[in-house]
């Protein structure tokens, strides 16, 4: 261990350090200020009836709605349903996407044959498949999860495949020169080498799986945050719509942060 020495900073360095501190502080202050101003204006304008809270709801009414739905246990139930669907869709899409990417990496021939189909699938707005999904897998949770998987899987496959193919040619030659077979190249080089890209794919998929699940819930559902939003919209209960959207924001944020923590742990190595 290095001995801790007392360093006398020059004035120039002190100014530099101060500038960094000030910079950080002003950024945070501005961020908080925006939130306070927006919420404050919203509350004041709706309270004074300058804007009709029927159309815009208001922060206080949102909180009231949240407390009410929380008390009846409804909120937790709907959150549970949506989180469940998202997690299943997220995990299945990631797993299947990586698996297909491995198959495509393995066989150049397969890659070439399937290339145009993947391009079409990637370009297709997956939401257009909604009616087909409902007919094929039934109107229910499975349809929502299928929608979620469809939205995530193509981008997962394409990102992972490009990460696999980007592996340094010399590293592959090195493995071959040491007598590695294709399995060993895959598991000891290609996959660990793509790990950083895998974490970025996870980050993208967190966002995409929420899109997929909420889309699915819009199309067909009896519960979930997406259901609450659609239902609230249909009966013009903007309090319900806004508060559900807020909850959605928070949960998606938490999931994103969890992946962020994972990423930092991985990158540290």
């Amino acid at each position, binding site marked *: 261990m290095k001995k801790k020495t007392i360093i006398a900073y020059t004035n120039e360095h002190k100014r530099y350090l101060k500038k960094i501190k000030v910079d950080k502080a002003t950024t945070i202050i501005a961020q908080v200020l925006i939130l306070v101003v927006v919420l404050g204006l919203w509350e004041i304008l709706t309270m004074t009836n300058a804007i009709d809270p029927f159309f815009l709801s208001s922060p206080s009414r949102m909180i009231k709605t949240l407390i009410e739905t929380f008390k009846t246990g409804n909120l937790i139930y709907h959150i549970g349903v949506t989180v469940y669907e998202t997690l299943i869709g997220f995990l299945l899409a990631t797993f299947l996407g990586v698996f297909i990417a491995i198959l495509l990496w393995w066989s150049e021939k397969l890659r070439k044959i399937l290339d145009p189909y993947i391009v079409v699938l990637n370009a297709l707005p997956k939401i257009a498949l909604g009616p087909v999904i409902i007919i094929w897998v039934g109107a229910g949770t499975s349809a929502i999860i299928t929608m979620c998987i469809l939205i995530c899987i193509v981008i997962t496959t394409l990102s992972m495949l490009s990460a696999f193919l980007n592996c340094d040619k010399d590293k592959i030659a090195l493995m071959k020169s040491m007598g590695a077979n294709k399995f060993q190249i895959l598991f000891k*080089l290609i996959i*660990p080498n793509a790990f950083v890209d895998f974490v970025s794919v996870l980050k993208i998929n967190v966002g995409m799986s929420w899109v997929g699940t909420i889309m699915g819930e819009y199309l067909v559902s009896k519960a979930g945050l997406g259901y609450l939003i659609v239902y609230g919209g249909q009966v013009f209960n903007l309090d319900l719509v806004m508060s559900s959207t807020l909850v959605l924001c928070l949960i998606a944020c938490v999931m994103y942060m969890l992946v962020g923590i994972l990423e930092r742990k991985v990158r540290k190595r």
Partner: protein
Amino acid sequence: MKDYLKLNDISLSYHTKEGETLALENLSFSANKNEYLSIVGPSGCGKTTILSLISGLLKPSKGEVLLDGEAIGKNVDIGYMFQRDQLFEWRTIYKNVTLGLELKKKAKDEECLKRVEYLLKQYGLYEFKNSYPSELSGGMRQRAALIRTLCLEPKILLLDEPFSALDYQTKLNVCDDVHSIITEEKQTVIAVTHDISEAISMSDRVLVLTKRPAKVKCIIDINLPKNLTPLEKRENKDFSKYFDLIWKELSNEKENNNSIHK
């Protein structure tokens, strides 16, 4: 031992949609055991191709490669070092060094592990065995890469411009390092380089190739005192003589090249 490695009348063509390119034509040379042979030549003449042939990663269109009297098969015991050290960032130094053993399912072989330990201790990497490559200097990384190939006890070591990614000062140090390790471990080395000084300071012989399709233009024996380090050889009075000689051979090639294009 003479003719430890022998390339017999090798030709190799590359095929692309645009046509066929003859990279090597009737190339023959041999290397003796425990010698350090450098290959220099005009850029794009197929130097790296020769290493790929010796390692068995490429098959010649014509001719044969013999190592220790046997034809090169798929699983030859060769050590290959590349421009960059190609250490795997997600593995510790120890895990990197034992990668080859793992691939050959010898990672639990007592004797092999003893050799790994000996090599790490001998060449100053033992205390870093649990570090990750990013924590090591360029020179240490290159040493780790060398040990990775040496612990497989290769019959021949192939170096593909292994010092070209290093800055000049590091390069001089690493050259000394690598040279002493190779001499001590009694390795036979075929090295490809574009750096004439490096070739002279490291090698017993320097082979000059012609432009594509590559043939052997000449082989120059470097008769500098064997007990000198590469850095000391650079200061020897005969060093510049060899430099001029190889430089002339190479520039001849370039002039020929230009006159053909005209």
